[in-house]
């Protein structure tokens, strides 16, 4: 027992595990050899003779023939351009062949032969393999210790389709794909300003995943950008397969149920956020882009809000907050009311519920727990199973839970209604990340309600509020702009005032250029009939 209370200094013998060792980095020979065949052997050994590593030997030039090799990875390269441009241009042109003998063949090829966008040199094996794995083509020339790296990245990608996780009625339908360059281009199409800066990194010792940080210079807060850079550069891990990996490394606080980074599949969302001064983090291999910093209210804003009229947008926002509260508190409130505070319930309703509960063998809390867990099981099953079986399961679910369980007297109808309402409410939250956090918090509230009734619930609400108020996302308090209360910014939280009223950018996130809407933007059409010429003389009659 006392051991628990001593300070733990005993964990320091595992320092070896802290550093990830990239596999066999030392196995590279020092530099590129002069002899082509040696180099090709190294390449073959290193890649274990993988079948998709293509080595194409070409002889170029006139007498004497120069041996070159073109190495690329099939599938990562745009094979069309290799076929058409690369090999052809080196082999075919006769003038070229002459020059190749007279001058440095590498320089000739680099300067004159290849109609490609990006060509550079590589001097050592690290650069060579890095480029090869990226999908670039290596041109090795016998007798040279430099190699050419040609950007031929291509290969099969998913085409741009509507994002499945965030669907809108009104708004663009393109969504991010797995290719980072496509993704950044989708944003560039929308923000055609030279101030949109993109910084690239490679993360992951083994995966070497491309990661890009994008922001608008002059709008984004330089301190936050610096902080993002610092945190990303600090990441030291084997693999980065999805933006979620990065999120968990750079978020402000791990032990919380609430997300402090926003992720989205939609380019218009990213663009909107960039214009508010936020920073986007792209990860190659996933269509989900991270946005930092993120505050609580963002997770209740759907991008569609900005395209709709202000009255419906405001109403929907209120509705979403209400829904979120219901999804957290509803089952807990039901438990508290029926087990501790029966005086709250109107007599007629109480009698109806009591009649139902007479038939059920469990206490209300256990019943609620059973129903909630069953629903979570159903939900997970719904995600995993193939579409063909989907409808069968939903029927089973509805029948089993809705009808049979009630009639068998295992659960009461009132509880079923409460759980169903909660479930629907949790699906109505725009951001999936927030809905997930609600799922767990709900159970905590249920336990609190089962032990202390409404007192437990209110203490839970207070604790939740304290927790949320204490969270920060990259230095910005999580509950901005409700707390600290910044009046002007509240125009875009629960309400969504018309665009001409949203004059300033969020002040804690951006700096510099704060005004985003010019003066006198409120639409004021000229009064009356001056627009239509003929009505001036004739009034409403058309004839």
């Amino acid at each position, binding site marked *: 027992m006392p051991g628990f209370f001593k300070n733990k200094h005993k964990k320091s013998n595992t320092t070896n595990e802290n550093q990830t060792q990239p596999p066999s980095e030392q196995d590279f020979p020092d530099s590129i050899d002069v002899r082509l065949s040696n180099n090709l052997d190294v390449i073959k050994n290193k890649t274990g003779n993988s079948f998709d590593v293509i080595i194409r030997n070409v002889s170029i030039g006139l007498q004497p023939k120069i041996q070159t090799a073109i190495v690329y990875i099939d599938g990562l390269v745009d094979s069309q351009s290799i076929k058409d441009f690369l090999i052809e241009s080196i082999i075919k042109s006769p003038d070229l062949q002459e020059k190749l003998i007279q001058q440095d063949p590498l320089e000739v090829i680099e300067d004159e032969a290849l109609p490609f966008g990006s060509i550079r040199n590589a001097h050592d094996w690290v650069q060579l393999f890095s480029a090869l794995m990226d999908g670039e083509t290596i041109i090795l020339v016998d007798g040279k210790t430099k190699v050419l790296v040609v950007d031929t990245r291509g290969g099969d990608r998913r085409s741009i389709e509507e994002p499945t996780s965030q669907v809108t009625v009104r708004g663009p339908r393109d969504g991010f794909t797995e290719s980072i360059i496509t993704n950044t281009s989708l944003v560039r199409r929308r923000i055609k300003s030279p101030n949109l800066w993109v910084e690239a990194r490679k993360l992951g010792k083994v995966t070497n995943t491309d990661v890009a940080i994008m922001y608008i210079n002059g709008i984004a807060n330089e301190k936050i950008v610096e902080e993002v850079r610092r945190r990303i550069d600090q990441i030291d891990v084997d693999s980065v397969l999805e933006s979620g990996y990065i999120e968990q490394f750079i978020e402000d606080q791990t032990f919380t149920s609430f997300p402090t980074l926003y992720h989205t599949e939609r380019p218009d969302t990213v663009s909107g956020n960039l214009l508010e001064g936020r920073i986007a983090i792209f990860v190659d291999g996933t269509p989900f882009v991270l946005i930092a910093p993120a505050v609580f209210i963002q997770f209740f804003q759907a991008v569609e809000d900005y395209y709709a009229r202000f009255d419906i947008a405001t109403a929907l926002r209120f509705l979403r907050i209400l829904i979120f509260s219901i999804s957290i508190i509803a089952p807990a409130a039901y438990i508290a009311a029926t087990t*501790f*505070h029966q*005086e*709250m*319930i*109107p007599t007629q*309703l109480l009698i109806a519920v009591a009649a139902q509960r007479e038939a059920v063998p469990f206490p209300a809390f256990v019943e609620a727990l059973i129903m909630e867990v069953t629903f979570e099981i159903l939900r997970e099953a719904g995600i995993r199973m193939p579409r063909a079986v989907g409808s069968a399961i939903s029927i089973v679910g509805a029948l089993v839970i809705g009808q049979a369980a009630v009639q068998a007297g295992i659960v009461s109808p009132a509880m079923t209604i409460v759980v169903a309402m909660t479930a629907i409410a949790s699906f109505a939250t725009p951001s999936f990340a927030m809905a997930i956090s609600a799922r767990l918090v709900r159970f905590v509230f249920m336990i609190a309600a089962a032990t*202390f*009734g*409404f*007192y*437990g*619930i*209110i*203490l839970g609400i*207070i*604790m939740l*509020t*304290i927790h*949320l*108020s*204490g969270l920060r996302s990259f230095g910005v*308090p999580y*509950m901005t702009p*409700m*707390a*600290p*209360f910044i009046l002007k910014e509240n125009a875009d939280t629960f309400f969504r005032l018309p665009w001409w009223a949203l004059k300033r950018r969020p002040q804690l996130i951006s700096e510099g250029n704060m005004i985003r809407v010019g003066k006198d933007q409120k639409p004021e059409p000229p009064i009356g009939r001056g627009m239509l010429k003929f009505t001036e003389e004739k009034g409403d009659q058309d004839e």
Partner: protein
Amino acid sequence: MEKAKISSYQLFVLVLLFELGSALLLPLAMTAKQDAWIAVLLGMIGGMFLFIIFFRLYQYYPDKLPTMYAQMIVGKPLGKVLAFLYILYFAYLAARVLRDFGVMLVTFAYPETPLFIVNALLIIVVVYAVRKGIEVLGRTGELLFTIMYLLVVTGFILIVISGLIDVNNLKPILGEGILPVIKAAFTETLYFPFGETVVFAMIFPYLNNSRKARIAGLTAIGLSGINLTLVMLMNISVLGVNLTSRAPFPLLATIQMIQVAEFIERLDIFFMLALIIGGFFKIGIFFYAVVTGVANLFSIESHTRLCYPMALVVLLLSITMASSFAEHVKEGYKFVPMLLHLPFQVFFPIILLVIAMIKRRKA
């Protein structure tokens, strides 16, 4: 002192929630019978004066906690003693409020639950907040303030709709003359709840804008005073003087009377929740003052570690301070105002201020 800054709006919210905290719960100035509400108004005005005194002291020593400037004003040994006494005072008041709320819950909603558990739960939440610092407390205040206010306003509207208000219960206004009212104001309402704002002297050093803050604080006192006056008016007009003085928690009795449209009735629990929010802040602020004061006085770097032991102290104090509710109430009426509130809220601050002013003149 922690590195934190709170805005004037946050101060406003904190003062308001603090004032409403337990004052909404308990009967105020019932010795003035149906004129209790006038006593509340008078107490509010007195409270504003006291607040100005506390704020002036802060303006003389911005960035310094009272535990520090007390030493600067009256010298180290005396100052330390004074500071320590204040810390005890705040701890006692925190325990008092905790006891009040615990008893309210146990009486109305959870008769079988031991008082210790109910109090312990509340103090744990307070500790959670205070550990995170005054900024978090401020922000939490901003968020919960809206909820609590909404509930209070809804309650008020429902009572009006129920047609429960009988203005006749307020008459005769000043039936016994103005004297009982003034007496009630100066022996009761001035100290509770308005003079208790002395605890905010421990929080002023964290303000980021002192000029706006003074207005914010005074507005909060004014607003809370008006609220409390309205509440007492409501209580007396709905329940009648007799029932209001017999009920340990008159507002709850009033809420119990709401019956609108057949199913909007028995809403006491919701208002109890609003009251708990108020109680949380009152205890929270007292507790924060205690912890910060101790940390400052004994030169401890961070106040977070002190929270748990201090919480235990306050919790135990709240259980042991009185063996029955009647004793607790009597203590509160007879001993606390004269023995504790008067010196700590009025005498010491005035003396300190006078000495400080003299020192300024000299320098």
